[in-house]
């Protein structure tokens, strides 16, 4: 975690309600370090845009404060915050050319004509659109408009740039290309970026840290690898990457591990992450690539069997869908190596995994409280 001194942005106990009845953001505490690429990731309606709008100054927090470089922002109007912003629909001004769009933030800052010209040229170069200055936004493709929007948010050299699902309207190939470009610009300029998306692969490839939002609360704030490998609750485990979930009851806690009983009575061992005592209902989270078919002696603690329901051939690996302990969507990835196990539909196969790969998390929203 970045310490308070070098935090560029700090949310302190921020709450937000639009209608006075329901909290859209509940007690948000978040420090964003200078130069960081922080992504807010979460399902639709989880309050990401609201957080961004409060930071940009278009919404006021109902409670709590937001600090930018140590100064409280609550009373600073948007135009004096000096925060660049990229909107989902780009929000390029249709009556201005690309050049005029880029010159706008510089003109309102009263820069000289010559200065504006060099800065705009540099910004257009940066997004690889040097000859498009004379065009209107409507004469550009979606990807080009996106680049202009990025250039416009950066041309006045803000310390902080906010992007609200900037790639939402682009097709998959262009998205990936733009992800790379934005990442590249971030690295070369050293600017701090707060990025909003509900696409988890986008978040994983681009960010230094990801804040996973759900229901107005940050569920977990961590680097992409930690988020993927060490999810702290059932929501994060399910939301990030592919995940096998098994519902179980805790039998016994011993140190950092626990023994749990699956719905069909089989017992396995798991890393106890989010369980506090025996008898509790827990959700086991297990990444498909960590499950081994026909395990050897190393996985003696976690040997159970499953029935193969479906096999999908994907070239480099084979996706197998199994029924395991009552869960009929248990996925296993079998690498297409030369000596891999031959599976056949309908057969029972032994499965296993390392205890530290199986994380015992909270009960999750789908599971009833213990009886």
């Amino acid at each position, binding site marked *: 975690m970045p310490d308070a001194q070098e935090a560029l942005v700090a949310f302190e106990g921020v709450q937000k309600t639009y209608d006075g009845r329901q909290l859209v953001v509940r007690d948000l505490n978040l420090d964003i370090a200078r130069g960081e690429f922080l992504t807010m990731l979460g399902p639709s309606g989880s309050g990401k845009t609201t957080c961004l709008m409060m930071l940009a100054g*278009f919404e006021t927090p109902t409670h709590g404060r937001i600090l930018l470089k140590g100064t409280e922002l609550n009373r600073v*109007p948007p135009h004096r915050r000096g925060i660049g912003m990229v909107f989902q629909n780009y*929000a390029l*001004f*249709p009556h201005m050319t690309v050049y005029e769009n880029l010159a706008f933030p510089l003109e*309102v800052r009263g820069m000289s004509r010559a200065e504006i010209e060099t800065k705009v040229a540099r910004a257009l170069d940066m997004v690889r659109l040097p000859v498009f200055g004379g065009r209107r936004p409507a004469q550009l493709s979606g990807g080009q408009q996106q680049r202009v929007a990025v250039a416009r948010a950066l041309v006045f050299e803000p310390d902080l740039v*906010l992007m609200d699902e900037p790639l939402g309207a682009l097709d998959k190939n262009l998205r990936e290309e733009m992800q790379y470009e934005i990442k590249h610009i971030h690295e070369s300029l050293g600017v701090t970026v707060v990025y909003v998306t509900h696409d988890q692969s986008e978040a994983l490839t681009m960010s230094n840290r990801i804040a996973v939002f759900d229901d107005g609360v940050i569920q977990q704030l961590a680097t992409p690898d930690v988020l993927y490998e060490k999810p702290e609750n059932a929501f994060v485990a399910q939301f990030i990457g592919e995940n096998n979930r098994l519902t179980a009851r805790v039998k016994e806690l011993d140190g950092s591990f626990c023994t749990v009983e699956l719905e069909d009575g089989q017992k396995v061992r798991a890393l106890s992450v989010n369980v506090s005592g025996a008898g509790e209902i827990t959700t086991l989270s297990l990444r498909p690539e960590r499950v081994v078919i026909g395990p050897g002696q190393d996985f003696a603690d976690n040997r159970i069997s499953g029935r193969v329901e479906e096999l999908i051939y994907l070239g480099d690996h084979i996706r197998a869908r199994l029924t395991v302990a009552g869960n009929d969507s248990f996925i296993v990835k079998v690498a297409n190596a030369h000596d891999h196990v031959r599976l056949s539909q309908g057969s029972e196969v032994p499965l296993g995994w390392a205890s530290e790969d199986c994380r015992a998390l909270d009960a999750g929203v789908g599971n009833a409280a213990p009886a």
Partner: protein
Amino acid sequence: MAHELTTADGVPLRISLERALLRSRIRAALLVVPLMAFLLFAFILPIFDMLYRSVENSIVAQVLPETVVVLRDWDETGDALPDETVFETAVADIQAAFKAKTLGRLARRLNYEKPGMASLLRKSGRRSLRITEAPWSEQLIKIDRKWGDINLWRLIKRESDHVTESYFLAAVDMRLDDLGAVSWQPENRQIYLQLFWKTVWMSGLITILCLLLGYPVAFLLATLPLRTSNLLMVLVLLPFWTSLLVRTTSWIALLQHEGVLNDLMVVVGLISDDGRLQMIHNKIGTFVAMTHILLPFMILPLYSVMKTIPPSYMRAARSLGATPFTAFVRVYLPNTVSGIGAGSILVFILSIGYYITPALVGGRTGTFISNFIASHVSVTLNWGLAAALGVILLALVLALYLLYDRIVGIDNMKLG
């Protein structure tokens, strides 16, 4: 070359396609036939009729058919009266016209050109019956000395053409003098140019008032939450549900000398009882009532344009460092230009031809050109002049429309 493609039964593809298209075209045309017929009789033909009436001038040739023929040989540029044959023919024509009761129409027509002609002709009608033999000219001049005025004969000869420019000249305060040259009307008879100008500037001011009052309302309509804006929209449209006459007369009730507003100001002590303000039957009345009545026509086009402007434009401008004012002037306003144009041209055109409201609340100073057109149609019965004024008004509106097309582009106009 490859042989021509045919359908299964051997008809060339191109021909059967055309047949199919023709059928759908005919069907489409049939759908609009009732409207086209209605427009033809209610709109297009009347316009042509108006154009025709503004130059039509067959009355002189109809009422004095023989005189007109014999006058052709007379040289009106000299200073000799026409000869005896002309007088003889004229007497015969006048007698015939008197019996046929067509003399009155001629009298009215010629009186437009030269005051006094009406009484002259009416006087001459009955008395001319007494003239049965030569000397024709002497006896006619005895009935009225004016028959010996060479300018009278010049006028008759000039107006014997089937078309005349004199209505248009009159509509712009000009006339043909005795020698047939174009000149200004005498100072005290010049009214129409002033009236056109007054109509234009008052309409312009009404348009500006509508824009100033309507812009913020349209902005609210476009940006408020749906439930509030629907209510506001009902309020904007409310005037459309009440009669125009009701709205206009209620302004009279509010603004008149003993009206609500004056009473209120007297009670509050703002003005004394004999210092009541004259707010109706003058220009103020026209401004207030017209602005009120035309306001929705400004708000609706503005609203439809503003509705399409995403709120993110203003936010983007603010985040880029623009103050609310700069963001409005440089980003919001330019994006509403097409709505401003559409609303303004709509209000201006409606206003410039408005009749009923200025007639009711305009008094003498706040009336428009259309009120004069109406009075020429129904009171003075000078349809030719009414038509000429109407044509000029139509031309003015068309010119404005073209100008707008040049500057903003009609395609950019959004009316709702």
